[in-house]
């Protein structure tokens, strides 16, 4: 019940992965223009993580299409399909391989509407994040690159319901959307997901847990580390407000600023490398906009400035977790 639902919630319980799979099937049923592209995604195999298996079984290989290992070309082809009115949803096998198609994303897709007004409505699904002992090339969090690139939207859900609702919105969005999925949540996280047509708007943060002493701003798998930390701290009498950004571009700064103006303390947390990460932007905005409200400096936690290491003790040292978050919050509250 990591996302606060109750046991008698009538909505079906789905894993984070199933929620994504459901959203693909729902959108493909609703809109013929939606096709899926990626390596090994067609049925019966259904992709490295099986996210597209249900869609492939239902819609066949004409709409769930295997591609060669050619990220530049097939993301480029998605650009062409999208310009012709289709809505391709591309899976890069791991988020780490998104760099192989970088030009087609940040140079072509991102700039097209600004330059000559045409729409490039695709989604790239990027199975990201670590904690799974997968090493430097199967654990990356590439979101900051795309937030920095004008013309993209970037979404990073942390619950099954958000994954479902935000994927519906991302597919319907007329812009190229980078959809960052958190691999460690795929099968470990269950939650209620409303069946049917329930999009969640891009650009609205979620107050995952209210609190008055300090705001933790985060997204993805770290949302759950933050709420765990908040549980710990509640026992110590410290009430943490946890804000899940959900969308990294556009950023819902209104919700963040309102919260920090109230709590006067802020910690920004993400699993991505801290240095020049999305958290730097969020922290800089908070420090600016909440200047006269802050009782302590805005702090950040993120991955260290090294490639994501493989070995468990190294990866644990690399990666933020609930203990590190709790420690940082305690320090902030004692400031």
């Amino acid at each position, binding site marked *: 019940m990591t996302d606060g639902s109750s046991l008698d919630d009538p909505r079906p319980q789905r894993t984070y992965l199933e929620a994504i799979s459901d959203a693909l099937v729902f959108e493909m049923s609703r809109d013929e223009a939606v096709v899926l592209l990626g390596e090994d995604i067609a049925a019966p195999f259904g992709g490295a993580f099986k996210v597209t298996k249900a869609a492939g079984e239902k819609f066949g290989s004409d709409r769930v299409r295997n591609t060669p290992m*050619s990220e530049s070309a097939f993301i*480029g*082809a998605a650009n062409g399909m999208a*310009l012709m009115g289709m809505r391709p949803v591309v899976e890069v096998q791991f988020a780490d391989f998104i760099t192989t198609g970088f030009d087609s994303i940040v140079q*072509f897709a991102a700039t097209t509407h600004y330059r000559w007004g*045409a729409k490039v409505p695709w989604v790239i699904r990027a199975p990201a994040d670590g904690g799974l002992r997968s090493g430097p090339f199967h654990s990356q969090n590439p979101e900051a690159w795309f937030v920095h690139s004008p013309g993209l939207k970037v979404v990073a859900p942390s619950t099954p319901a958000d994954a479902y609702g935000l994927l519906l919105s991302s597919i319907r969005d007329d812009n190229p959307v980078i959809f960052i999925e958190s691999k460690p949540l795929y099968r470990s996280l269950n939650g209620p997901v409303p069946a049917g047509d329930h999009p969640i708007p891009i650009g609205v943060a979620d107050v995952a847990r209210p609190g008055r002493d300090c705001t933790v701003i985060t997204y993805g798998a770290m949302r759950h580390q933050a709420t765990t930390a908040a549980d710990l701290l509640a026992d110590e009498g410290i009430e943490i407000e946890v804000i899940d950004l959900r969308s990294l571009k556009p950023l819902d700064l209104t919700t963040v600023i309102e919260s920090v103006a109230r709590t006067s303390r802020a910690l920004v947390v993400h699993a991505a490398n801290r240095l020049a990460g999305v958290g730097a932007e969020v922290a800089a905005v908070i420090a600016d906009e909440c200047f006269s409200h802050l009782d302590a400096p805005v702090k950040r936690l993120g991955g260290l400035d090294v490639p994501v290491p493989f070995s468990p003790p190294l990866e644990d040292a690399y990666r933020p977790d609930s203990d590190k978050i709790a420690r940082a919050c305690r320090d902030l509250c004692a400031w």
Partner: protein
Amino acid sequence: MPTDNIDRLLSAYRWMQLTRTLDEAIRTLWLTGKGVGGTFNQRGHEAISVGAAMCLQPDDLVAPMHRDLGAFLVRGITPRRIMAQQLGRATGVSGGRDANIHGCGDLDFGVIGFISHLPQSLPVAVGAAMAFRHRHEPRVALTFTGDGGAITGLFSESLNLAALDRAPVVIVVEENQYAYSTPIATHSANVDIAARARATGVEAIDIDGNDIEAVLTNVTAAVGSARDGEGPTVVVAHTMRMLGHAIHDGAEYVPAELLTDWERRDPVDAIRATLEVAGHPVDQLDEIDSSTLATVDDAVEFALASPWPDPSTVESGVWA
């Protein structure tokens, strides 16, 4: 020559002369200090860009590159809009957002606005063709690349995708012997681009890119076969870039004899000669030339009198 042919050639002559004249006008503006930023030279490429675009139907799609001024014109993007685009005006195709003929896209005319990263138009055209095929639409996508673009990995990846899908796409390679200052033999271990294309599984032919009839005939066949479900074709059109890579480039690295040789094969001179030999009245051709000049003069005037974009709009439209 049958009348049909003559009419088509006359039409080609009109577009090629417009391309040539517009290009010369742009060049003049730049050389007299009235340009904004840089701009590309088109001379020598007129038969290819015009001829290939003429083989398409209105519903088809074209994804040009920086030597394809002719293709933009044939598709219906007016000289006024192009000239205003070159000069960064609000009335230009991209409203002053993109430079020279980059970003000169308009889906109403089935034209993709290209980016600098070469050859990014290629996978885009392949994807468009995949969409046509997926929806069983009888449409074709056509794109262009240079010899430099044809040595990139994206070229081979895009051809493979196209071949796998039997996508209705035609890829015209403008083999103009140079990629910027680099001769083809310096950048390509195998200069036989058609052979490289065939090895990926795509049909390929070589043609004389300065011969408009060769372009019209062969690209029409390629477009037809794409439309008939026969899959992609690469058309390697051999030509010579007759000026520098772009306006700033004097191309001192090109041997003078090479240019002299190719000057004799000028595509605009050649089509005119063909028409004259076929007995077409010279005064009618002259009449095309002078009306073309008037069109271009009008475009220049229009562009120079056009307003700059409003800086307060700079942040609008980054998203749809």
